């Protein structure tokens, strides 16, 4: 990849688009770990991808299809009365099945499916960029409102039960937030990259550091740093972004696990 490309503005828009999700998704991932619902990340990205393909099949905007499908998945989860990973496994299988059948029967869907599953970040345009940077502050503000309730529900469940504040709307609000953020991210950076960003940094950091706030900050930092490194590497070696990001963060996670075996917990 030439220096002209690296230094030019051609890749600035996709880079900044992905950067917003590289900050947001790891923070959301910490809350998924809090709820033992990390499989939600796979389910919502897969369902969003299927929704985008369905939308394309009926000549509707794929982004709207992805968002609608993810919101529908959040609604199904909320009404399933099953807090946990079982419902997410079913949603994942449903999303995967629909996506594969559409690709098999609709030649036009193949290109979009490839972009979604390979993570063709470089095709992100101004609309993706705006959506990402509008979503970032909104999602963080929404999360800030839900955060205390989510933490109390996990660590002091008796406090909420006893005061009658364990209300489904907080949990549904969180499900919708996760669904919306992952649907938008999937449309811009692809299924595997979105899952990588929401799963790996939170997993490494939550298992290592002291303090919830520190974990949120370090997750965002690790997501952004890993993303930037993978973006640059993918450009330099001229490979698809999604797998490069997944391998970069997965290898980093493996390395940190090895280092932790002989070191004290991070502080």
């Amino acid at each position, binding site marked *: 990849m030439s220096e002209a490309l690296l230094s030019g503005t051609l890749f600035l828009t996709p880079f900044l688009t992905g950067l917003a999700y590289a900050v947001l998704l790891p923070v959301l991932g910490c809350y998924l770990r809090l709820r033992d619902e990390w499989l939600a990340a796979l389910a919502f990205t897969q369902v969003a991808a299927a929704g985008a393909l369905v939308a394309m099949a009926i000549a509707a905007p794929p982004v709207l299809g992805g968002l609608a499908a993810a919101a529908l998945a959040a609604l199904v989860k909320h009404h399933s009365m099953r807090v946990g990973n079982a419902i997410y496994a079913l949603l994942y299988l449903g999303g995967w099945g629909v996506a594969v059948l559409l690709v098999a029967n609709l030649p036009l869907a193949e290109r979009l499916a490839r972009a979604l599953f390979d993570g063709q970040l470089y095709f992100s345009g101004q609309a993706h960029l705006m959506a990402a940077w509008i979503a970032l502050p909104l999602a963080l503000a929404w999360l800030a409102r839900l955060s205390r309730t989510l933490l109390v529900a*996990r660590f*002091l469940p008796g*406090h909420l039960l*006893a005061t009658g504040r364990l209300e489904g709307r907080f949990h549904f609000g969180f499900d919708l937030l996760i669904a919306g953020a992952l649907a938008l991210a999937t449309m811009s950076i692809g299924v595997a990259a979105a899952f990588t960003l929401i799963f790996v940094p939170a997993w490494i950091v939550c298992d290592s550091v002291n*303090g919830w706030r520190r974990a949120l900050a370090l997750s965002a930092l690790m997501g952004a740093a890993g993303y930037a490194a993978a973006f640059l590497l993918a450009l330099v070696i001229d490979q698809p972004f999604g797998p490069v990001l997944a391998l970069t963060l997965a290898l980093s996670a493996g390395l940190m696990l090895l280092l932790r075996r002989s070191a004290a*917990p991070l502080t």
Partner: protein
Amino acid sequence: MSQPQPGEVEVIDLVAGYERPVVGPLSFNLAPGRVLGLSGPNGAGKSTLLAALVGTARVFGGRIRRPPGSRIAFQGQHPPPVHGLPLTGRELLELAAAPCAGLPEWLTPALDRRLDALSGGQRQFLHHWATLMSPADAVLLDEPTNNMDPAGMAELKKAISRRSSTTAIALISHESDFLESVCDRIVRVGDKQVSG
């Protein structure tokens, strides 16, 4: 009939359970400045009784009267699992709006450690402290002395005495000496006798 004051809970001929009745009928009152103990053999329905007070068990008969908006804090027998989560002891107390001041000296250094790095006794004490010292009108504790050594039990007694001046407290324990030393009144669940 007069409305109960904040912290007061009137339990009248309560029969509670899940699919079927497990405990009752029982009657007792919780009131600020009083500590009620619930004792009885395993399976007598003590935990079910507290669960009924916080709305997670089914009420088959009788009534529970408490003023609307009253804040009841409840801590079950076992602190929730925290493995792999980075919350520290200090952050737990912040969540409960409970003060660090007054914690026993042996627990203070552990406040800035992750909950999953604390011993079972430390976590048990910290969770019950968080509940006890939260700004609630009534506090319900289920087996707070589990995993606790004599030093921990002594500190817990001090904390309950300190808190009970302004808050209604009900607690379950198999430690009869502990109950006798901190409670004004003990209800034996199972044989429905009231003593103290």
